[in-house]
């Protein structure tokens, strides 16, 4: 146990990457998910088709493959770069992969949130002459977003855990699980305390998230 705490800075460093990956990917996936959802309920069949194809394709692909594609495909094979710094470059590709993947689940949640809205709401909105865009902005999304706080919380928790796969995008981002593995392999600290320590670290991240989102979901629930 002492060896684990003696290297606590490594643990903190690992989780700092986890948190950074989570926050940026959460932002990216939420925005992309919002766009995908708007496309999926839009009046233009082509938009619906594109968004549905994207969601069905990406969510059935393993995240490991998505991240590998970003890291090796976009970065190494096609030569895209964000920064000169290798570590941050891998980081941004991991954020792109995580966002692209998680956006599917954000979109699925939002769409099912829209489905919970009573038909009368939409009909009423249309009958007073709101356009599709106004309908979406003023009537649907405010209600749908409140209905999906709980599911979106689940998506965020899953995303936090999924950041551990970032190492598939390339070496360089030593997030928590990679840090844990290094501590195992280099014999920095015994395995069991290290494992339990990192597990507690993840619970410390995800438990408050879960509490917060279920509190928020109750608080914001739409009475029907």
């Amino acid at each position, binding site marked *: 146990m002492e060896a684990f705490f003696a290297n606590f800075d490594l643990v903190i460093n690992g989780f700092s990457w986890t948190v950074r990956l989570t926050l940026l990917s959460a932002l990216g996936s939420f925005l992309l998910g919002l766009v995908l959802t708007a496309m999926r309920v839009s009046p233009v069949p082509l938009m619906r088709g594109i968004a549905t194809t994207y969601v069905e394709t990406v*969510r059935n692909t393993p995240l490991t493959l998505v991240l590998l594609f970003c890291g090796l495909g976009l970065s190494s094979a096609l030569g895209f770069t964000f920064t000169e710094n290798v570590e941050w470059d891998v980081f941004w590709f991991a954020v792109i992969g995580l966002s692209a993947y998680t956006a599917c689940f954000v979109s699925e949640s939002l769409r099912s949130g829209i489905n919970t809205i009573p038909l009368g709401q939409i009909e009423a909105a249309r009958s007073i002459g709101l356009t599709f865009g106004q309908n979406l902005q003023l009537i649907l999304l405010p209600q749908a977003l409140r209905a999906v706080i*709980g599911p979106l919380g689940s998506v965020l928790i899953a995303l936090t855990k999924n950041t551990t796969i970032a190492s598939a995008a390339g070496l360089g981002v030593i997030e928590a699980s990679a840090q844990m593995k290094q501590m*195992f392999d280099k014999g920095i600290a015994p395995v069991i305390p290290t494992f339990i320590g*990192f597990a507690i670290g993840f619970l410390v991240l995800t438990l408050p998230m879960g509490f917060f989102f279920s509190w928020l979901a109750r608080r914001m629930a739409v009475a029907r």
Partner: protein
Amino acid sequence: MLLFDVPGPRARARHRVYTVVTLLVLVALLGYVGYVLNGSTMRPFNPEGEWTAQKWTPLFTAASWQHYIIPGLINTLMAAGQAAVAAVVFGMLFGVGRMSDHKWISWPCAVVVEFFRGIPLLMLIFFTVAFPLVLAQLAEAVPALAAIGLADVDITVDTLTAVVVGLTLYNGSVLAEVFRAGIQAVPKGQSEAAYSLGMGKTQVMTLILLPQAVASMMPAIVAQLVVLLKDTALGYIVAYPELLRNFRFISTEHNNIIPAAIVCAAIYIAINMALSRFAIWLERRNARRGKASATVVGAPGMDPASVGALGAAGEPGAAPAATAAPAGTTPEPTLRGEPDDGPGEPGDGAEGPDEPGTGPADRG
């Protein structure tokens, strides 16, 4: 669901404009992707482009399929199959155990389930890989254990075992919650009637509750198997020679990571879509038979098929409250019946009716 009326002439004209704009954006995007993939001397890594035959043909030769793709697929399916069976058994034991009247059974079960659900799957796999190290360190730290021969235990954990153990613990814990939800969803009168016939608790569980619960749980279980199958790709990270790893071998040899990734993704997508369709079919069948399908979803509007596939190491179908609450205080999983083609049916919602003439803005 349709958020718009049957379009009139002006709306139709507007929609045509939108369609053209979307098409232009799509063409521009595809054109850019095509340009990037085409390669040029500007791109030192990839001067010859991705469309050349020498990048694609290696993926379709008999040798590639014989030595890499088919064995990889077999390894993936083997890991998924073993883990699926083990996870269902694990889930049933811990799901039922968690509902036990004996605190000394239900509490440990709850702790195990919440722990393994709450931490990333990859960490479980890393831990399993490091298990021989654990034994050695234990023997070193606790002399008593070394005395009874722990130091001499010489085991190796192969990567298949690590992947299967990790997948089993994680997905088993998720399935435990599914089982719990399914069992609690059986109408109370069933168990009351069984008790009044003089059955014991074990008999009620095995003869009355479980058989009825299984039908309602099938869609959620199959949806979880999609997650499990996708998560076998984590074996890549610990060098288990599954499908993704073997495609990586091909791509290293032929320098064709992008074509390899595309073909690899196509295989995964085909398998997963087939499984997802199966889950949806099971759910519809339940609905036709007037049975509800059990989900572990706490919040409204999540269907098991969509949440179920939630992720590599995802949090399939779990209500955040259920995920988050510490052992013992977890809210009971809820059961929702999914009406087959009711207005709120999420499965075929947003696509809407394809022929707008069927009626003014019907949903689904």
